[in-house]
């Protein structure tokens, strides 16, 4: 809302600026136009983000999503992917506007997965924290690894952006735990990973 009001004030000021000189006025007109376009884009972005959020909540099936954002708090203004190359190389490129965590476990001796918990995260602080913790995971070891028992349990993390399609990463909870998105894989073995896995499990604990 504050951004919307600033846009209106700017438009009203534009005629006064024209009185200084033609050159300055021309420059300012271009700048003003640019500002107006930028503000429109921001407003449109906010709208689309809210739309995404609504869809996220609506898409939660049997297990209701737990919203971890204070009531009325909008998504971070800065969320997005600035570096497109990061989409190919980073586990979580940029800063997502929201994360939807879905926790699954395997049924006994069946390959099917059962959804056991879900969380819809929009708190900017929590988003930054999780992004930072995912980014801190080390690369997967290149050599061989005899792992703990892997029962197939996992958490999928849908990364929602303002101007980019949703990206999905998967964090395995058992075996040699890892976070994987496409060809980007990080190991969640060790203290850093254990802390992150514990946090993801706590966030998606069935209510």
């Amino acid at each position, binding site marked *: 809302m504050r951004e919307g009001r600033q846009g209106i004030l700017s438009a009203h000021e534009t005629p006064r600026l024209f009185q200084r000189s033609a050159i300055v006025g021309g420059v300012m007109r271009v700048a003003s136009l640019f500002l107006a376009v930028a503000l429109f884009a921001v407003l449109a972005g906010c709208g689309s983000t809210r739309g995404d959020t609504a869809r996220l909540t609506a898409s939660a099936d049997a297990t209701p999503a737990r919203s971890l954002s204070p009531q009325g708090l909008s998504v971070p203004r800065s969320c997005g992917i600035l570096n497109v190359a990061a989409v190919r190389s980073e586990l979580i490129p940029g800063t997502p506007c929201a994360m939807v965590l879905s926790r699954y476990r395997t049924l006994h001796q069946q390959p099917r997965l059962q959804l056991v918990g879900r969380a819809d995260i929009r708190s900017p602080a929590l988003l930054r924290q999780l992004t930072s913790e995912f980014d801190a995971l080390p690369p*997967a*070891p290149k050599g061989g*690894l*005899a*792992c*703990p*028992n892997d*029962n197939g349990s996992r958490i999928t993390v849908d990364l929602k952006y303002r101007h980019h399609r949703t990206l999905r990463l998967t964090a395995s909870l058992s075996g040699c735990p890892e976070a994987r998105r496409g060809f980007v894989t990080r190991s969640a073995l060790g203290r850093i990973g254990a802390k992150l896995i514990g946090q993801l499990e706590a966030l998606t604990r069935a209510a």
Partner: protein
Amino acid sequence: MWEQMINNMHYSYRTPPSRKIVIPNPDDFNVASSNNSTAEGGTAGSFSSKNWSGYVNYSSEQSYDEATSYFVEPSPSVPCSKATEVTWAGLGGYNSHNLAQNGTGYNAPGLENHQGWWEILPAGYVSVPENGSPGYYFEAQTYYAGVISGKKTFYFYFYDYEEGSWWDEEVTTTNGVDESTADYIVERPKASGYFRPLADYGSTKMQGFTNNKDLAHYPYNVGTMYSGETELASVAGIPPSSYLFTDTWHHCGKEEE
């Protein structure tokens, strides 16, 4: 160096063979007619796994500091690309990501075929200069000696019954220790983040002894390895035996996450 290592030990090394048990001749192995009595009181459950096949002692009231396995060193074939197997005894890894283990491997990255190795996660396995002899018994023991001089200390022991050769190693760690389970496992390991297909080892015989008792003395779970709906390996033998079982390969599976 050895004298120094032994002098530094705070407990006694056992000279091989470390246990007065009768190692059955693999050719005579027959679970159904085994004289090994029945399980001593452990109760059985089951679990499915993407990477483990074998028996796991568990108990909320019992901690385990020793897992010793005598197994017939497998002589696998590799019917699928990259097919691999490791056979081991270890502590932890069932209820947590903390796992210490030792055993042998076949077609495993970084190991010669049949070479011994130990591992304390999160680090990868470490090879040792002791190899198993295919078709002959091999002993692998993981022992948690506790905190010695302020350091969590594991002891790994390897013995090849064909050659009569052995290797042991004391390893300290700052990683977590999980004494809630003792494990006797055939596994398909991971390499570069992906489970390898399982090498065809046919059937291999294993014996498990936990805290110096037959594995069936304690509660245990029976693990079957799956890839999707495909059963890759399974075990049988306990009961009637209280420590002797077979682990049987069924399928390769595929390289997968």
